[in-house]
């Protein structure tokens, strides 16, 4: 291994530069801690490295389509809704980083500075105590060691910096936050909102809160970010910094302090554990280009490599004290892995509001918070689902059958005829973490850097099947009663993974016997290692998880710094 010198010593090391890692780096740097931010992929500088961001549709060679050769070579990432000609450079291709599917799992990844925060869907709904108390009440997984009151101030803290557009809805199931103005709902969305409010007690349709700056505050201007311009081209990276990603926000903020060293092309092999000191002392990195092994040291280490890769790094961090992975005394690491069930969809049409349409664009939609089993258990499955709700006015009579020549030309250039309103919803279902859903390291197969491949053994269960059926039934009933017609439902039967909400494997809990992390996201058995990305999640709830990862990270980083000041780390 390389020689250790001052350049390799830091006050904090953060593994992973995405949604949560960027936050850890920002918090440490803000308080004067010399921080090393490790990223396995290339650097992506805000604006400069968004090559497609200002391209017009006609400038794309294939009209937005991903060429067939790339789809054939990467069938998994090609299933992802956001993998298009304008964004494909931000996604890992299947053959670049193989993994082992003991059971089918579609793993969608973004290996670059900013990670998947560049291409995320930007939905930011808070959790409530109906979520944090879920496992304890319903008897699955283990009790969360925190409650809403513990995280609420940190939700506020990150929301103010990120910039969240939303309405104060006053719902216990989805607590309000620090909101910038909301965009309008459409006529049909407002109609459905009123209809559901009048006809269903405790069911609500609201504006879906999202990480977009609709009215820049001084804190956003200070980051160099401006107002969202409703381009809805977000996944390309935004030249206005209108939505939140680590590249436009937390990382440049941390760099500006002078305390951050950002090191791309740094594949973390493992965390180094010192048996005499009884704590972790640093990380072992393989330079992705030179394959050289390098060690960096710091008194505190944050693991934010994305849920599955954080599991991988910890499982691969073995020593005689921890032969099964760092902090894995109880053998639960990699287990109780869970995700969100996004299988079902419903669509329909509404034959009203014909004198209205929409104008401009909006990067969010409406949202139905979970209404199943909220106050008490009431169905034959545990937990429930949230649903998106969106409406749009399409065109009518767009067919060109039988037309050619001038007739066809006239049809294509004539003023289009508006069709009826279309409506649609997708399911966001909670899944129950189980010991039988797990990830491990493959015993034989290794990647190009000598690191074992991750092996997934994750699948749906009976609870998921029942919940999917219930979503279709309940949504069909609500759509029908609301007067929607031409209703179509689908169950994609996708493998887990396309929700891109991998969670668990290194769960938080009260007890070292039944969990890996304490209430501050510290490994019970190695307290100077913190895990604050999806890997730490005890249960999944239904909300898009990034906001919760960011809040947990900011909270844990500030706790770590307090503990360091007290000499406890």
């Amino acid at each position, binding site marked *: 291994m390389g020689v250790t010198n001052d350049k390799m010593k830091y006050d904090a090391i953060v593994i992973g530069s995405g949604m949560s890692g960027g936050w850890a780096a920002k918090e440490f740097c803000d308080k004067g801690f010399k921080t090393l931010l490790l990223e396995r992929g290339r650097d992506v500088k805000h604006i400069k490295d968004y090559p497609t961001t200002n391209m*017009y549709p*006609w400038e794309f060679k294939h*009209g937005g389509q991903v060429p067939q050769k790339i789809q054939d070579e990467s069938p998994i990432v090609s299933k992802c809704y956001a993998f298009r000609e304008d964004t494909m450079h931000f996604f890992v291709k299947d053959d670049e980083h193989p993994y082992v599917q003991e059971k089918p799992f579609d793993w969608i990844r973004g290996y670059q500075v900013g990670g998947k925060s560049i291409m995320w869907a930007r939905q930011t709904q808070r959790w409530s105590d109906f979520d944090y108390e879920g496992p304890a009440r319903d008897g699955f997984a283990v009790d969360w060691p925190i409650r809403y009151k513990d995280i609420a101030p940190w939700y506020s803290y990150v929301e103010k910096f990120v910039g969240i557009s939303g309405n104060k809805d006053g719902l216990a199931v989805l607590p309000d936050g620090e909101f910038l103005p909301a965009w309008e709902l459409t006529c049909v969305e407002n109609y459905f909102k009123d209809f559901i409010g009048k006809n269903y007690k405790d069911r609500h349709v609201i504006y879906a809160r999202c990480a977009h700056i609709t009215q820049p505050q001084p804190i956003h201007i200070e980051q160099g970010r401006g107002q969202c311009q409703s381009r809805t081209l977000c996944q390309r990276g935004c030249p206005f910094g209108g939505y939140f990603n680590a590249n436009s926000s937390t990382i440049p903020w941390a760099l500006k302090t002078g305390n951050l060293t950002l090191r791309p092309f740094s594949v973390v092999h493992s965390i180094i554990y010192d048996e005499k000191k009884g704590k972790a002392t640093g990380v072992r990195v393989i330079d992705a280009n030179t394959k050289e092994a390098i060690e960096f040291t710091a008194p505190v280490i944050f693991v934010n490599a994305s849920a599955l890769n954080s599991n991988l790094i910890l499982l691969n961090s073995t020593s005689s004290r921890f032969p099964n992975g760092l902090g894995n005394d109880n053998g639960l690491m990699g287990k109780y892995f869970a995700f969100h069930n996004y299988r079902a969809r419903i669509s329909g049409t509404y034959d009203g509001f014909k004198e*209205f349409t*929409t104008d401009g664009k*909006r990067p969010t939609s409406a949202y139905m918070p979970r209404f199943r089993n909220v106050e008490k258990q009431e169905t034959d499955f545990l937990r429930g689902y949230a649903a998106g709700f969106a409406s749009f006015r399409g065109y009518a009579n767009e067919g060109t059958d039988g037309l050619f*020549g001038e007739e066809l030309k006239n049809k294509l250039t004539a003023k289009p005829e508006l069709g009826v309103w279309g409506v649609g919803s997708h399911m966001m279902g909670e899944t129950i973490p189980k010991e039988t859903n797990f990830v491990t390291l493959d015993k034989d197969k290794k990647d190009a850097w000598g690191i074992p491949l991750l092996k997934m053994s994750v699948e749906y269960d009976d609870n998921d099947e029942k919940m999917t059926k219930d979503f279709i039934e309940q949504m069909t009933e609500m759509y029908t009663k609301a007067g929607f017609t031409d209703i179509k439902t689908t169950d994609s039967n996708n493998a887990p993974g396309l929700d891109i909400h991998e969670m668990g494997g290194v769960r938080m809990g009260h007890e070292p016997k039944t969990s890996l992390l304490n209430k501050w996201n510290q490994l019970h058995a190695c307290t100077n290692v913190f895990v604050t990305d999806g890997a730490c999640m005890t249960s999944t709830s239904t909300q898009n998880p990034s906001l919760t990862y960011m809040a947990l990270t900011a909270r844990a980083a500030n706790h770590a710094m307090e503990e360091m000041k007290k000499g406890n780390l």
Partner: protein
Amino acid sequence: MKRRTVIKNVVFFSAGAVLLPSCLQQSSKPSVVLKNIKVSGEQEELVAALSEFILPTTSSPGAKQLSAHQYILMMVDDCFKKDDQEKFIKGLQQFNEFAKKKSGEMFTDADVSKRTGLLKTIESKKDIPEDILSFYNITKRLTIQSFTGSKYYLTEVRKYEMVPGRFHGCFPVTNSKL
């Protein structure tokens, strides 16, 4: 190789080159580089003629001006599954013969009325060989795409807004620019 044979071969090959009309030699290659499908220059001309007939130049640009034939070949080459590429190529190979059978002339030689009659027959979808129909449908769909996805269309016909900066959820149709 014996000296005599080498000379014989050289003579034979160069004679062949001389015998081959130069125009054919030039047109035997398409104007776009294709990696997966094989298309000759003549076939490219057929695609160009058909796409221009489907979407002619009027007061607005037609297929020819938009180089729709190049777009069609490139898209089939890059973005189509092997099965669909084969259908397209088979239909392309048979198209002139099919036209001759139906209208008495190869499509490339046919006049406007014969071409119109042929396309009406194909659009009727009755008793059209599967490969011919596949080739025609793909060509038509991509011709339309090359038009509706063009800079002309998205700036002059249905204006594409890169930076709308607004969203109105309940906007009177009468005020809508569409």
